[in-house]
């Protein structure tokens, strides 16, 4: 490497000839706070729009087209106690292009563009451009408002608000909320921007036919300064309630959305993490699962009935779309599947199939440059890098008793049903 990498900045390069493109990902990671969520969502939206050199979204889009349709985007996500602003960019490897005559390869041009987006935004006189700011604030407002048009999303959001009623940062959408948004000023966003550049942990990753040295050279040009490495835990720890909260709302929906939330206090670094992944796959995470088999295939009560596990917040969720009149029957079937796993009633064949499908999914993910890039953040946050062979060996060793031990830690916290009322039920 030509230059010392700044403190608090990491670089991962996956050199491979497997793909036609070279992909770049830059994560800015900060502590999750309720105030920062909305401000950072708006900052991401503003940064994505323009730069000093490309002062309109059209100018920026034309530059991306000139780079042979470079894909580019800035997104925000919440992971446990962290908030991430993620920039991604992918360009074609020019060796696959006919008549390529640019002076510089597309990868170096893409790195230069990302540098401009991050370090040279459209900020005349130290403030973000007023027109851009107002427009993007309006757009984000509309986007947050539109989220609830997706009734499956809405049911899940209301469920999160039940579980995390005293933890607004956990309950809130990654895009923030409308009240905060309406109060944000250009000065707030400029402050958020400066704090991001100065304090956030930065994780850069590149995948494609490039050498580590070539990436390091392109990155050396970025004015990243030293920052304190964030050693704090990414895991959100919380205490389960003994009482289950139940709520429902009537809305103009044809299908009832019935969702459940559980506490599952096992995190990514825990010894039982992989067993928990197996548990989730067996409970509702795959089409082989007990929920899919019993709610859908056997009882014909749903088209979707699945579970999801969040290893950063220690939560397990169940999502179903059903007829409202069948709610109690569905709740009973879901409860029975969990009880079965808690009492160790799991066939060896289900365990074997679920493990085989997790192995298959892990290997298949190696064929997706996006998933390989985004998967790296888990390694950064957990400071764990488990080689494939060791992961396979750990997976193979998991037993029904391991899954049972995990299932016994699952505790129902809340149920929520969004439905059309009795008059719509058939």
């Amino acid at each position: 490497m030509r230059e010392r990498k700044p403190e608090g900045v990491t670089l991962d390069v996956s050199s491979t000839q497997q793909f036609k493109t070279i992909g770049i990902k830059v994560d800015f990671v900060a502590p999750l706070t309720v105030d920062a969520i909305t401000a950072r969502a708006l900052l991401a939206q503003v940064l994505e729009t323009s730069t000093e050199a490309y002062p309109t979204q059209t100018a920026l889009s034309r530059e991306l087209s000139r780079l042979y349709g470079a894909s580019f985007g800035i997104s925000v996500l919440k992971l446990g106690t962290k908030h991430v602003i993620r920039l991604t960019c992918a360009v074609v490897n020019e060796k696959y292009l006919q008549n390529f005559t640019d002076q510089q390869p597309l990868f170096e041009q893409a790195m230069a563009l990302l540098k401009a987006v991050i370090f040279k935004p459209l900020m005349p006189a130290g403030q973000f451009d007023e027109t851009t700011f107002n427009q993007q604030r309006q757009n984000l407002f509309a986007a947050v408002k539109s989220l609830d048009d997706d009734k499956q999303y809405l049911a899940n959001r209301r469920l999160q608000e039940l579980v995390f009623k005293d933890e607004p940062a956990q309950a809130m959408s990654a895009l923030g909320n409308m009240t905060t948004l309406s109060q944000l000023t250009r000065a707030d966003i400029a402050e958020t921007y400066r704090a991001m550049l100065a304090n956030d942990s930065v994780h850069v990753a590149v995948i494609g036919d490039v050498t580590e040295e070539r990436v390091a050279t392109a990155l050396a040009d970025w004015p990243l300064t030293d920052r304190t490495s964030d050693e704090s835990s990414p895991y959100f720890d919380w205490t389960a309630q003994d009482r289950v909260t139940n709520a429902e709302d009537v809305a103009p929906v044809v299908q009832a959305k019935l969702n459940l939330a559980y506490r599952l206090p096992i995190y990514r670094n825990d010894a039982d993490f992989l067993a928990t992944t197996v548990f989730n796959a067996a409970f509702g995470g795959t089409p082989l699962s007990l929920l899919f088999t019993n709610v859908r295939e056997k009882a014909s009560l749903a088209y979707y009935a699945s579970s999801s596990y969040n290893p950063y917040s220690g939560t397990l969720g169940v999502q179903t779309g059903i007829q409202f009149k069948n709610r109690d029957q569905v709740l009973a079937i879901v409860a029975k599947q969990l009880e079965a796993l808690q009492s160790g009633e799991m066939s060896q064949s289900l365990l074997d199939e679920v493990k085989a499908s997790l192995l298959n999914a892990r290997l298949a993910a190696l064929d997706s440059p996006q998933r390989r890039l985004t998967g790296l953040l888990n390694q950064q946050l957990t400071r764990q890098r488990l080689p494939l062979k060791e992961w396979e060996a750990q997976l193979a060793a998991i037993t029904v008793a391991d899954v049972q031990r995990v299932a016994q830690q699952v505790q129902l916290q809340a149920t929520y049903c969004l439905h059309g009322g009795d008059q719509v039920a058939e």
Partner: protein
Amino acid sequence: MLNKKDYPKLEESRSVTTLANGLKVILIPKAGFHKTYALMTTDYGSIDNTFVPRDGQPAVRYPDGIAHFLEHKMFEKADHDAFDLFGEYGASSNAFTSFTQTSYLFATTNHLHENLDILLDFVQDPYFTEATVNKEKGIIGQEIQMYDDDPGWQSYFGMIGNLYPKEPMHIDIAGTVDSIAKITADDLYAAYNTFYHPSNMSLMVVGQFDPDEMLGWIESNQNAKTFPPVVPIERERGPVATPDEVVAETTRHLSVSRPKINIGIRGFDDVPTGADGLKYSLALSLVFDLLFNDTSDNYLRLYDANIIDDSFGYDFQVQRDSHFAQVAGDTDQPDQFVAALAAILDHAEDQLVAAQDQFDLVKREAIGRLIGAINSEEAIANQYDGPLFGGATIFDELAVLQQIEFRDLQAAAQVFWPQSRRTVYTILPE
């Protein structure tokens, strides 16, 4: 014998053949990949609801949603479910139905030969009883109701219903709760026997394998089975709306936070066949890029006037018996949205000339995006349109795209636009 074609610049190749039973096989090896993706497709979709059953006369009108219902029921057998057989190897499997095709797939990183046999065997071994058919009605009923609550889906299919008011396309691919209630096991057998003959199907395999060995596996599976002789498929296309019957506009109220507008443009011209059809399709896609993509002057003007925002999008698609474009988005100014887009679409050919200086840029982008799509086995397989474009693969599509010039866009627009008809489908908050 495999017919192999190399694409040296792309470092890719494809091998194709047609088996003795008529099954078309397309094999694309992907060096360095871990997974293999196999997609078996029949040229039979939701619009094919009236046809002469293989063993009968005359044409019969079957309940709406039968192709999609059949897709669901193919997995279930007398003593097992094909999902579980794939599951034993950890492979993932799925299926989907469109207006004109039904496809079955698996993806695996191991036991490729075994999984291939499972795919071929479950798609070629129908098993339906009244009991299993009736059990599926609850599941598909919930699938239909899930989409009833999806405003994006409602907007898209509302627009299509206006463009194709008499054709089967105006009915949801899955049918309705009432129409699927009428489906019987005999109906499914009739549809199966008519459309699932190997001569009406293709098998595309993309991934980590040797093409000759793969072909050997496929042939040994197929040679062990007997198939009835090929008979021509007689679909009855049914009523076709005249241009004047296209519904000009519809407004609906739904539980949405902001107005949603979908403008559809139906072509009444005849799409050329084979590679010419592919060129026509790509040229018109580029026309819409020039008019509406985020590098266009139109886009910036409407964006700055807050008439469109990041939800804005468009596409152009060609399928058997239909081709249409959609231009859609959420907006707080629905009247201005419709007026501004109508003003552009009314003068599309002039607009095209005005945007000519952006042609090279737009073409560059399309080329780069298509090359990027070759990263994905799913994209390679799902792009394949079978007989529609003369069996062209994504590599052939790239070659056609690279040859396209601005005058091809003008030629396609001159054919498409004068005969096209438009609809505006608006969803407003309640």
